[in-house]
């Protein structure tokens, strides 16, 4: 009897271990195959030149540039809004009905499928906001068409829950006693938030920002219709008149790594001929998101350890 129970325990443990190992093997296989097939392709030339000969040769520089531009714009949209939202939730809202509703909305927003954000970007940002700006400013069809601005806004909405949740976590990690001490010295609520709570939670907020950049850089569905271009002969850069300073042009379309990979894998005339470039693009994309993710995870571990002490 006792022996059977022990045996059942051993079997159970090993089944769980086995399932964990399968999950890990999946990770290793994905990374390994991309690394093996992609590493030989990564040259300086591949990173810094434009696609040539119908995408069968050349590099992916415009796609890398576009990815960086759109994620920078995205984080400009999402970070202030998300941080302010989290500050309200943690420091001001309490635990009432409104706070619970906001929290439910944040959780729901995190679960909205990315393609729905794509539809929303087209229906709201481009056709509603963009077209109405055009009407008011009398600019013809300048804002009411797919552009980097709207792609970044759509991605910003998508990563908003990531920013909010990680900022919330960071704010909650600040001990209550610090707030109380500041109040006892006569500080107002905003002084407490801005001078005691925020400086201590900066690293947590940074973690959230990095995670959301990595999430935004890897998403494809929201930008399919809101601003991505298959191929652009120019970079989305505009020179400011009189000052001669080049600036990202948010009203231009752009190339993006994940979209580039999608187009080359599914819609190029000769998918086999561009396969090496596809692996190269996938390798660059995954390296980018992994560096971001790893730094976020290690930052979080460091941050938690420091707080436990």
């Amino acid at each position, binding site marked *: 009897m006792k022996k059977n129970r022990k045996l059942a325990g051993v079997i159970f443990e090993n089944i769980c271990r086995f*399932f964990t190992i399968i999950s890990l093997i*999946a990770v290793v296989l994905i990374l390994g195959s991309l690394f093996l097939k992609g590493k030989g392709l990564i040259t300086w030339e591949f990173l810094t030149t434009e696609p040539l000969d119908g995408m069968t040769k050349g590099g992916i520089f415009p796609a890398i540039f576009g990815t960086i531009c759109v994620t920078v714009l995205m984080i400009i949209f999402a970070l202030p809004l998300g941080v302010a939202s989290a500050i309200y939730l943690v420091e001001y809202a309490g635990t009432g009905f409104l706070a619970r509703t906001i929290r439910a909305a944040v959780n729901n927003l995190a679960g909205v499928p990315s393609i729905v954000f794509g539809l929303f970007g087209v229906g709201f940002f481009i056709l509603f906001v963009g077209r109405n700006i055009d009407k008011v400013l009398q600019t013809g069809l300048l804002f009411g068409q797919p552009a980097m601005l709207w792609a970044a806004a759509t991605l910003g909405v998508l990563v908003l829950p990531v920013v909010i949740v990680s900022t919330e976590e960071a704010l909650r990690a600040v001990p209550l006693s610090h707030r109380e*001490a500041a109040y006892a010295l006569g500080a107002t609520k905003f002084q407490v938030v801005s001078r005691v709570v925020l400086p201590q939670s900066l690293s947590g907020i940074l973690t959230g920002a990095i995670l959301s950049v990595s999430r935004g850089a890897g998403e494809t569905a929201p930008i399919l219709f809101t601003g991505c271009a298959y191929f652009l002969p120019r970079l989305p850069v505009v020179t400011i008149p009189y000052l001669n300073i080049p600036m990202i042009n948010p009203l231009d379309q752009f190339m993006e790594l994940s979209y580039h990979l999608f187009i080359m894998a599914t819609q190029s005339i000769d998918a086999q001929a561009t396969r090496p470039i596809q692996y190269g693009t996938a390798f660059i994309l995954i390296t980018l998101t992994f560096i971001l993710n790893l730094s976020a995870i290690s930052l979080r571990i460091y941050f938690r350890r420091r707080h436990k002490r």
Partner: protein
Amino acid sequence: MLSTRGINHTIRDERIILPSTTPPRKEASLSLRDTPLRAKARHRLKLKVQEFFIEKFLFLNGLASIIIIALIFVFLFRTGIKAFIEIKPLQFIGTHIVDFSGQEVFAYIWQPVGEQGKYSLIPLVLGSLLVAIPATIIATILGLGTGVYLAEIASRRVRELIKPAVELLAGIPTIIIGFLCLSSLGTIIQNLFHTTFRLNAFVGALGVSLVIIPVIATITEDTIRAIPDDLREAAYALGATKWETTWRVLIPAGISGITAAILLGMGRAIGETMIVLMATGNAAIVTLNIFSSVRTMTATIAGELGAVAQGSAQYYALFLVGATIFTFTFFLNLVSEIIVNRMRAKLKL
């Protein structure tokens, strides 16, 4: 020491503020208006007004998520509902067509391009379920095992090594999983099972399950670890072995959290776009064969919206499909949210 740093900070700043707004003493003695007391009161008032506006500003930001959810709701349904004006409601189920033998049959076809568009949602919904349900089953088995392993079996060191790896799986862009399904997994599955189509619902389901394994694994682990130690100790005291404790005490105690995780995973599976777009073959067929090519709701939108004229019947129909997906996932999320909240209240976390 963190705490002293925070406090010093405040003290220093208070010292700076007060003298700077207090006028020099010489003037204070001359005029009654600018006594230090009045200046202090004025400063207080200024702070109060400032606080008021800051709170209102933060409040507006806090509402952002609610507003965005509402806007998504309004814009999807407002556009999607117009499909009912352009297309007869019955058409969303099926269309009467004349088949090859000349008989009139009721067919479930999604074929918006053509002389007379056919807008049956049946093949799309079936396609979505044919990918999402197997994906959820696979991910539940693997994710549950991983979650239990991480929570109860693994040692601390092993856990700290494996957990980031599982989290990394969640961080892989879905386009890359889709690309690998398209370029390698499809061929491997075809050679193994000798399927007719290289890209089919099963390949898509395997790809999608990779996305939701981390979701189920992490929530399961969190749930089991959140169960108070009293329950474990009571079970051990009664002579239960580790696996008996886990199987008969911890999993039943955390069943609501695990259910929520599975529902959440299912929501992700239905909403997943890029993997199914690349891996399922994209043929809108009414079938229950898992090795057949299918076309999901998400892939239909992603594949067709780019080439459709704004304001056409197909455009509205695509928004209707989007509204359907949104409704599906909204309810799955809502139910899992309610379950988790109940569990939190029960376990008093």
